[in-house]
C-alpha cells in the first residue's frame, strides 16, 4: 500500500556514507579472494608463507644477527679469522668486506690516493644524473661530458696539478667497470645508429660492409674478441710498441656492443610505417634531415626496452675483462679472497659486489621505465 511507503522513514540526506563491508573491499577482502579462496589455495599460501618466513629469518640470522663485522689483524698483516671460521656458515663474516672493501672498490690504486678514484665514481654518477635530466638535453651536454671526462682522466692518471702519476695497470675496481661501461656504450651507441642506417642503405658497398661487421662481430663470443685484443693483437705490432691493455679491451667492447645495438636500432627503424619515410620525402627533407628529425626520434622511442636490456647486459659483461687480467670490480672481489686467511668467505664478497651491480642496473631499469612512459604519453588513451 501506498501509505506504508509514505510512512517508512525517509533516507536521511545527511547521514554519513558507510563503506562497503570489510569482507568485500580492503586488504582482508584482497587476502580472501587472492590467497584463501579455497582449501587448496589456503594450503599453498600457508606452505609458501612458511617457507618465505623461514628463508627471510634464516637470511636475517645469517646476515645480521650471527654476523661478525670485524676481526683483529695481526701486526704482520695477517687477519685472525678463527672467529669467523667457528661460525661454520651460521653467520656472515662481513669482516672480509670491512677489511677488503677499499681493495675491492679501487684495486691496486695507491692506497693514500684512493680519494681520486672515489671522486671519479662520484663524477660518473653525477654525469649519469645530469644526462638523465631532460633539462640538459641540448648542446650543453657536450661540454659537460667533455669536461667531466677530462676531469676523470686527470684524476685517474694524475701527473698534472701536483697529482702523482698513476699508470693504468694500477687502476682497478669500480672505476674500471664504470669506465668500460660508460665509454663502451657512449661510443657504441652512435656507432650502432650509423651501422643500422647503413644496413638499410640502398648503396650496396655500405650495406655489405655493415652486414659484414654485424654478422662477424655477433658471430663470435665477447671472450674471444677480448682474447684477440689482448693476446693476438700485440703480436701484430712492431716490438716495443704497445697499446694500452685497457684501451684494447675498451675497443673490443665498443665493437661488440655496437653490433648488438645496431640490430636493436634496426628493429626500431623497421617498425616505423613506410608512410613516415614518404611523408618526410614529400616535405623535401634531405636524407640526414629526414633521419634526424622524423625517423630516429620515433624509432629509438620504440626500442627503449631492448636498448636498456642491452645496456644492462653490457654493464655486467664488462666483468669478462678478468680473463685478460684487468682488475674490474668483480675480479678485485675475487682477488680479495685469494689470501688464505680469507679463503672460504666468497659469499660475503659476492653479495657485496652483487649489490653494487644491482644498484646501477636497477637505477638504469627504473629510469628507462620512466622515460618510456614519458615519451609514449601520446599513445595512451
Amino acid at each position, binding site marked *: 500500500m501506498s501509505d506504508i511507503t509514505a510512512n517508512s522513514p525517509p533516507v536521511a540526506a545527511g547521514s554519513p556514507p558507510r563503506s562497503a563491508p570489510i569482507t568485500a573491499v580492503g586488504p582482508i577482502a584482497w587476502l580472501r579472494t587472492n590467497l584463501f579462496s579455497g582449501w587448496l589455495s589456503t594450503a599453498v599460501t600457508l606452505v609458501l608463507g612458511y617457507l618465505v618466513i623461514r628463508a627471510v629469518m634464516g637470511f636475517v640470522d645469517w646476515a645480521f644477527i650471527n654476523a661478525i663485522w670485524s676481526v683483529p689483524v695481526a701486526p704482520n698483516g695477517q687477519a685472525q679469522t678463527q672467529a669467523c671460521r667457528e661460525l661454520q656458515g651460521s653467520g656472515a663474516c662481513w669482516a672480509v668486506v670491512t677489511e677488503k672493501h677499499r*681493495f675491492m672498490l679501487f684495486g691496486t690504486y695507491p692506497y693514500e690516493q684512493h680519494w681520486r678514484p672515489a671522486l671519479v665514481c662520484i663524477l660518473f654518477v653525477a654525469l649519469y644524473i645530469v644526462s638523465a635530466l631532460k633539462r640538459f638535453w641540448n648542446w650543453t651536454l657536450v661540454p659537460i661530458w667533455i669536461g667531466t671526462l677530462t676531469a676523470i682522466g686527470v684524476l685517474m692518471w694524475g701527473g698534472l696539478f701536483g697529482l702523482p702519476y698513476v699508470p693504468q695497470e694500477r687502476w682497478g675496481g669500480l672505476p674500471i667497470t664504470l669506465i668500460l661501461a660508460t665509454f663502451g656504450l657512449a661510443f657504441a651507441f652512435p656507432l650502432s645508429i650509423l651501422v643500422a642506417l647503413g644496413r638499410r642503405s640502398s648503396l650496396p658497398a655500405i650495406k655489405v660492409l655493415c652486414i659484414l661487421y654485424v654478422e662477424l662481430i655477433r658471430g663470435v663470443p665477447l671472450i674471444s674478441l677480448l682474447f684477440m685484443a689482448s693476446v693476438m693483437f700485440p703480436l701484430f705490432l712492431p716490438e716495443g710498441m704497445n697499446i694500452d691493455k685497457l684501451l684494447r679491451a675498451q675497443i673490443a667492447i665498443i665493437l661488440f656492443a655496437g653490433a648488438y645495438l645496431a640490430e636493436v636500432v634496426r628493429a626500431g627503424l623497421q617498425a616505423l610505417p613506410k608512410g613516415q619515410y614518404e611523408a618526410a620525402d614529400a616535405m623535401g627533407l634531405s636524407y640526414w634531415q629526414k633521419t634526424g628529425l622524423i625517423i630516429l626520434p620515433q624509432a629509438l622511442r620504440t626500442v627503449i626496452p631492448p636498448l636498456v636490456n642491452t645496456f644492462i647486459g653490457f654493464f655486467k659483461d664488462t666483468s669478462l675483462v678478468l680473463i685478460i687480467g684487468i682488475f674490474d670490480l668483480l675480479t678485485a672481489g675475487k682477488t680479495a679472497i685469494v689470501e688464505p686467511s680469507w679463503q672460504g668467505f666468497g659469499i660475503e664478497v659476492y653479495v657485496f659486489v652483487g649489490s653494487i651491480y644491482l644498484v646501477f642496473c636497477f637505477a638504469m631499469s627504473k629510469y628507462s621505465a620512466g622515460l618510456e612512459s614519458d615519451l609514449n604519453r601520446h599513445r595512451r588513451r
Partner: protein
Amino acid sequence: MTQTSRSTFLRAIGAALIAGAVSAPALAQQPAAGGSSPTVDAIRARGTLICGVNTGLAGFAQPDSQGVWRGFDVDYCRAVAIALFNDPDKVRFVPTTAQNRFTALQSGEVDMLSRNTTWTLSRDTSLGFDFTGINFYDGQGFMVKASLGVRSARELNGATICVQPGTTTEQNLTDWARASRIQFQPVVIERLEEVVNAYLSGRCDAYTTDVSGLAATRAVQARPADHVILPEVISKEPLGPLVRHGDQRFADLVRWVHFGLITAEELAITSQNIGQAANDARPDVQRLIGRSGDLGRMLGVDNAFMVNIVSRLGNYGQIFERNLVPIGIQRGPNALWTTAGGLQYAPPFR
C-alpha cells in the same frame, strides 16, 4: 676518438714527468760493462721494470688490503728492480692470466715474467723464452682426510678425486693413474673455492693439485691435522722467472739475482747482519757484497747490488719464510743443498 687522443696526450705528459723525475738517478747508475742489453736499456730509459705476475695466488703474488703487491714471485721482481735502480718501488706489476702471460712477455708488454711458470722444453725453445733458474720446486700431490687412514697414493684405487680443469693438473692425474694401473672417478670443478668445498664436504675422497696449493689449503682449515698430504709427488713443476730469448745480458742479471739470494743464505748473510758483512773476512762474503771481484759491473749493475737487495728483502730463506711459511708451505725440496740436503744450490758467486 676523443678518448684515444686524450689518453695518448695524458700518457705523454705522464711519461715525460716520470722520465724527468727518474732520469737523474738512472743516468747516475754505472754504465754496463762489456756490451749492452736492449731490455736493460729500455728499462733504464723508462725508469721502471715491468714485471708480469699472477692475478692472485696466495703466497706468490697477491695484492694486500691496501693494494700493494706481495708474495714470493713479487719479491723476485722487486729484487731485479733493486739491482737496476736500488729502489724496490721502481717496478710495475702487470697481472697476467694463464692464457695471456706468454703473449705479454713475447710482445714486450712486460720485461720479465715471475709468475709460477713451469719450466718445460717447449716453452724454453719454441715459445722463445729463457728460464733464468728454478726458485721453487713444486709438484702435484694428493690430500686426503686423515680419518680415511690412507697412507699412500697407491691405495687410492677406486677413489673419487677432486681436480681443477685447465692446466696440466688433470692430464698429470690421468697419466699417473694409467701408469700405476689405478681406477679413479674424477670430479672436475673449475673454481678453487668450490673444488675445496667439494673435498671438505666429502664429495671426493682426495683432492689433487700442486703440493704448495695443498699445503696452503690445509693450513687454513680449522684442524689442519685432519688432513694428510700423501708422500707421492706425481709430477715435476719447477717454477722460476723467465725472460725473452735473445737478450742474454738481461737473462744473466735475473739469473744471478736468484743465485745471489741463495748464496747469501748459504753464507748466512741476512737483512739483519748485512750491515756488519763489511767486517766479515770470508772472501765469498766480500765478493757477494761487492767489495772485491767487480762482479756487479760484469752484470751491468752496481757492485753493491746484492747488499741493496738483501738489506731490503732478505736472502732466499727470508723471502721464503716471509711469504710461503705463513700459508703453510715448508721448505721441503727448496731447502739449501749445502746445509739441509735440499735442491737449492747456487754456482760460485765469483
